[in-house]
């Protein structure tokens, strides 16, 4: 591991611009949350735009009966001709009758429901009482006027915290939705270190949700969970601050922070982590052949940008030109910023046209951006990586560190492979 820089980007001034933000809203989180929580249904109360966003973000129309849907507001709902609360009751009753397997129902607020001040908390309370104990109904907002992309998961988890069962028992909660396979790897590493009573939020099923109390510790596996952090602390649980488990170094630092709290000896820590860590470093090294010495420019997307820039610069030999994030949570990012060597522009929020001007001027070897920008930038000769794949793909912890590096290396490798075509390629109309 490299020596840790003293302050890194901790004191770097942040460029804040206000203009068009080319980002998803928080509803998008439903795409991975509904896969994670297998007995949950996400009912967006919104417009046709919300429904269209969800199916467009899901990419293809793949699921027979998806566990998410949109109660589309119509003219009569807005004109007050229909009582919205009654309408919600009717749609929920119909839905639950058709889907007896559903144990948790999330009423998800949207831009239009927020603007007309539809009280989904009231609806959730009433419906919870009606359908208890079989179904628990919660609400949160995934609206674009309040949340950006991954903040939807934050809002969802924060809404779950107040209803977690109380306990006085000591325990550790891993917070943030991970693919099951990755979650199992993390749990196995902690178990091997002798850390007991480890649970996850969100759990895969409603009946497995963690209990919480003053003797609970928690560690975040995702960097965008600021509101969830606050909610957990309100329940008396104590946060274990750490860098995020991306790459061999990030994973080691994250595990070390947790291990320290539980008094795991250096010897045990080394025994448990040595082999997977070596595997991760080996896998990263393969991708580093492609990535080493290359520059990267991050458009804001998921709040994963700062940890990923740290990973790419410290473990893959890249240079960061700009690291954009939709929202910079200073406390959660403190250790990450300290690790990130000075140099890149840090930007928060977005004026997409101005940022595109900077990206075009910088001409980084790799530009990490949203799907709306990727092909247009490729057509201008820039290599790009779709940011959304970083959220939908297993990338955390040791065994995925090589895959994570590979996601960045592949566009560059592909470009090199197709180099003979380059002079004749013209983007099709």
């Amino acid at each position, binding site marked *: 591991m490299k020596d840790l820089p003293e302050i890194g980007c901790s004191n770097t001034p942040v460029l804040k611009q206000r203009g068009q933000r080319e980002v998803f*809203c928080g509803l998008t989180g439903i795409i991975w949350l509904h896969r994670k929580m297998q007995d949950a249904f996400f009912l967006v109360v919104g417009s*046709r735009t919300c429904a269209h966003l969800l199916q467009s973000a899901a990419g*293809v129309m793949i699921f027979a009966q998806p566990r998410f849907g949109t109660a*589309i507001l*119509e003219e009569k709902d807005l004109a007050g001709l229909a009582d919205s609360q009654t309408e919600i009751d009717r749609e929920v009753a*119909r839905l639950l009758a058709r889907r007896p397997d559903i144990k948790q129902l999330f009423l998800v607020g949207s831009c239009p429901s927020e603007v007309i001040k539809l009280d989904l908390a009231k609806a959730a309370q009433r419906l919870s009482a009606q359908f208890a104990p079989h179904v628990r109904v919660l609400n949160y907002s995934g609206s674009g006027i309040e949340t950006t992309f991954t903040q939807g998961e934050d809002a969802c988890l924060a809404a779950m915290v107040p209803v977690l069962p109380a306990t006085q028992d000591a325990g550790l909660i891993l917070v943030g939705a991970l693919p099951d396979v990755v979650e199992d790897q993390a749990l196995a590493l902690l178990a091997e270190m002798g850390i007991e009573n480890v649970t996850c939020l969100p759990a895969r099923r409603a009946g497995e949700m963690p209990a919480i109390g003053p003797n609970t510790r928690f560690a975040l596996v995702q960097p965008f969970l600021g509101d969830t952090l606050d909610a957990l602390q309100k329940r008396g649980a104590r946060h274990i601050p750490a860098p995020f488990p991306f790459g061999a170094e990030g994973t080691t630092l994250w595990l070390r922070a947790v291990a320290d709290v539980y008094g795991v000896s250096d010897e045990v820590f080394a025994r448990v982590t040595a082999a997977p860590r070596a595997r991760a470093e080996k896998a990263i090294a393969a991708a580093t052949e492609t990535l080493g010495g290359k520059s990267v420019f991050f458009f804001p997307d998921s709040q994963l940008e700062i940890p990923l820039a740290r990973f790419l610069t410290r473990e893959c030999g890249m240079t960061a030109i700009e690291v954009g994030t939709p929202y910079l949570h200073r406390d959660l990012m403190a250790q990450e910023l300290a690790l990130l060597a000075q140099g890149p522009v840090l930007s928060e929020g977005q004026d997409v046209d101005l940022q595109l001007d900077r990206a075009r001027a910088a001409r980084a070897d790799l530009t990490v951006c949203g799907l709306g920008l990727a092909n247009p930038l490729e057509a201008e000769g820039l290599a790009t990586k779709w940011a959304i794949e970083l959220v939908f793909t297993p990338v955390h912890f040791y065994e995925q560190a090589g895959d994570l590096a590979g996601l960045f290396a592949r566009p560059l490798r592909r470009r090199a492979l197709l180099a003979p075509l380059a002079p004749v390629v013209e983007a099709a109309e």
Partner: protein
Amino acid sequence: MKLSLWTYEGPPHVGAMRVATAMKGLHYVLHAPQGDTYADLLFTMIERRDHRPPVSYTTFQARDLGADTATLFKTTAQDAVARFAPQAIIVGASCTAELIQDDPGGLAATLGLNIPVIPLDLPSYQRKEGFGTDETFLQIVRHLAKPCALSEAMTANLIGPTALGFRHRDDISEVTRLLSDMGIGVNVVAPMGATPSDITRMGAAHFNVLMYPEHAESAARWMQQNLGQPYTKCVPIGVGATRDFLAEVAGITGLPVRADTSRLRLPWWTRSVDSTYLTGKRVFVFGDGTHVAAAVRIAREEMGFTVAGIGCYNREMARPIRVLAQSLGLEAVISDDYLDVEEAIAALQPELILGTQMERHIGKRLGIPCAVISAPVHVQDFPARYAPQMGWEGANVIFDTWVHPLVMGLEDHLLHMFRDDFEFHDAAGASHHGGQHSERAPEPETLVQAMPNADDSNIIWLAPAEKELKKIPFFVRGKARRNTEAYASERGIAAISVETLYEAKAHYARG
């Protein structure tokens, strides 16, 4: 409120985006919250566009709502005009902005821009994407097109093709060729490829070819009334429809029909003996009204299929599709709820679905092959090769596309001959579809003594009959089973024997 799981159409402002993105030199200033920018990826990813859609979003946030969203809109419009230097802008609101009632049209008018500003009024809570394309194109034409001298040579405008349309790119080439064969030039193609200044000279054409009524019928009507241009009603998809289209054009222009059909292969391909197996195949047709009507005609007159059911998702086309269904003795499925469509398909058990990407997935679940004939589109619907639906080449493409999901004639024959061969077992499927068979629905469990029947009646299958049923090729077994049960049920037969099975087969024989 209405629960929606998957939708066929987006909101109307996405329709406006399809028009704006198809055009050049036009910019759309859209009052919308952050998040609505997702729509950009439809164009850059599905259609592989190499430019961002020409849309500036205000992307207001909650904190702006208490402040001044109107100023935010004005700044966005001014910045967009300064940065992109469009010839004209369209302005409007998405669903959320509609609620805050800032009046983008009124605001833009106060800016003193020296280019045309076209306000759009697209009611997000009543209408959908198709309305959005049609209304947006109408407003653009109304604001910009002016009466002008007719072109000296005979010319037409091609109207209706938009971004994210089903094969619009290639249909334009094909229709241009059809007209060119008759000595007719193209004045303006719009919206696709047109600039606002092109729109101003649309009046120079002698008539309009209305390629897609979904997107341009209102504009066609307006131009007929205000510019005196007749428009074509026949959409040239399929051999017969293309001939009718040429006759219609001849009627409008007074020119004789001239057609170069040297490239047309469908008539021989469909008559050649390998196609015999297509005879009477039961198809279910669903999509936008225009493509459905065209597909029904091709299915019946050019492929020799039997149309078992039809429908469309766009209510604007409900009436003609209902009339068409009645003429076939069917009841149309007019719905934008894919569960209704799935139910209809499951009940009819067609041998082929001609539908949208949504029906393709329904087909996968039900184990029924599907060919895509209509939007909503998927990245697959933008092939690199030339693949029109209209005109002679369109007919060739349609023949290939529709036949592809089926087992070929000769192969069908071989499956019969070798049905006991281990390699021709049920799951073998069509040889040109790797792995497709695994998507077939599993056969229901069978009993040793008697198999339960498909519906809830009390008919049972005797073991020898059940064994015989298994000998029938898997791809017709479901139908044989249903037909036999229906036959038995009509005649009050409680237990199906081998005898019953063959009596039913004879009864339902197509001859």
